[in-house]
């Protein structure tokens, strides 16, 4: 047997300061994209300059929902689909908090769909990270509103025949001010996008295409997590500013990523101030969040 060197073995990772170390290693499968999304998120949070004590993360139920349990921030693991209204309450209860919703495609778009579109409509000042693995992972791989046509899942054993949602289209049409999509392979751009979304005023949505090798990948013979990432590498097309109506993941398997929407629109509290502020004094309407420069990187 050939002798191998070893890297320096250590016990802790620099990002551990933002993780609940007594809960690592996490429960996600080998090859799952959630760990990568969380890594990008933690980098984004650190570099955003927002005071960590003011950050609150709300998640729903599902594999992605477990993110809240691993973050060393005020984190709330709520019921299925209801992360957004909980986050709305948290935000309006104390507008000085920076509220981030981190949940999965089934949680946010299926059962939570109504809350998604209304929170976007109201332009609630919060960030939504939606990790899309095209199925319901935690419960065993059932079909979701994002499952592509023809794909197999435990509840679509003969191939899915329902049209799926295009999350960026839904978010943009509902009124989100920042809509982006990246795959979990493209970590640097993902981190930068998350950072922009966190610092953006208004309802910002970042969709992360993530491999689920244990379930979706296995049922559809997509290989290991690594194989799925290689597929993303071959099929990803970056189109900043693309029309959200045109970015659905089509039959050809091409995944269009990029920053699709980045507009300015008054937030819910801005509108409240406008509508009521002249007559009434409503405390804590100004968010005391520091804005930092987002580092410029070549695209």
């Amino acid at each position, binding site marked *: 047997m050939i002798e191998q060197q070893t*890297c320096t073995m*250590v016990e802790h990772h620099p990002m551990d300061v933002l993780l609940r170390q007594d809960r690592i290693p996490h429960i996600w499968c080998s090859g799952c994209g959630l760990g*990568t999304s969380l890594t990008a998120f933690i980098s984004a949070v650190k570099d955003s300059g927002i005071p960590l004590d003011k950050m609150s993360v709300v998640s729903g139920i599902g594999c992605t929902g477990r993110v809240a349990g691993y973050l060393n921030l005020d984190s709330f693991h709520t019921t299925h689909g209801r992360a957004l209204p909980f986050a709305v309450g948290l935000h309006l209860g104390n507008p000085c908090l920076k509220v981030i919703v981190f949940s999965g495609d089934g949680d946010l778009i299926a059962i939570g769909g109504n809350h998604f579109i209304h929170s976007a409509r109201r332009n609630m000042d919060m960030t939504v990270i939606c990790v899309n693995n095209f199925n319901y992972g935690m419960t065993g791989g059932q079909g979701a509103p994002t499952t592509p046509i023809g794909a197999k899942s435990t509840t679509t054993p003969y191939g899915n025949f329902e049209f799926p949602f295009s999350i960026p289209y839904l978010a943009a049409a509902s009124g989100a001010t920042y809509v982006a999509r990246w795959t979990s392979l493209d970590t640097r751009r993902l981190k930068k996008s998350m950072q922009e979304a966190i610092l953006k005023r208004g309802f910002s949505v970042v969709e992360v295409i993530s491999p689920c090798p244990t379930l979706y990948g296995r049922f559809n013979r997509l290989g290991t997590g690594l194989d799925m990432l290689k597929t993303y590498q071959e099929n990803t097309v970056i189109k900043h500013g693309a029309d959200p109506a045109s970015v659905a993941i089509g039959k050809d398997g091409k995944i269009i990523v990029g920053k699709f929407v980045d507009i300015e629109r008054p937030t819910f509290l801005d509108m409240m101030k406008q509508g009521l502020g002249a007559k009434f004094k409503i405390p804590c309407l100004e968010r005391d969040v520091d804005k930092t420069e987002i580092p410029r990187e070549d695209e």
Partner: protein
Amino acid sequence: MGEPSTSEKPRFWRTPLDLDKLQMPKGKVFVIKERCKGCGFCVEYCPRDVLELSYEFNSKGYHYPVPKNEQACVNCKLCDMLCPEFAIYTVEKEKETEVEKVGN
């Protein structure tokens, strides 16, 4: 120009005027063996082909990354960002003593 080069001198089509000031950063790789779940992302996507999977297992039965060629590491941190398990990170070589204290 994706060919990993282990030599010290970079190869350029035209020599930049400040070539003598250019320094390729060097990185040192740290691994938390027990957290690794053997997904292989770091090995596959390292642009300098620094890593390979070990023959040994960790206590969970996964093959973790070991350096094939640690000299080639340029601290790009792609392994750090891609790793889903918070099991690998790099530090620029000059700063390695500080970080080793944090790591342990």
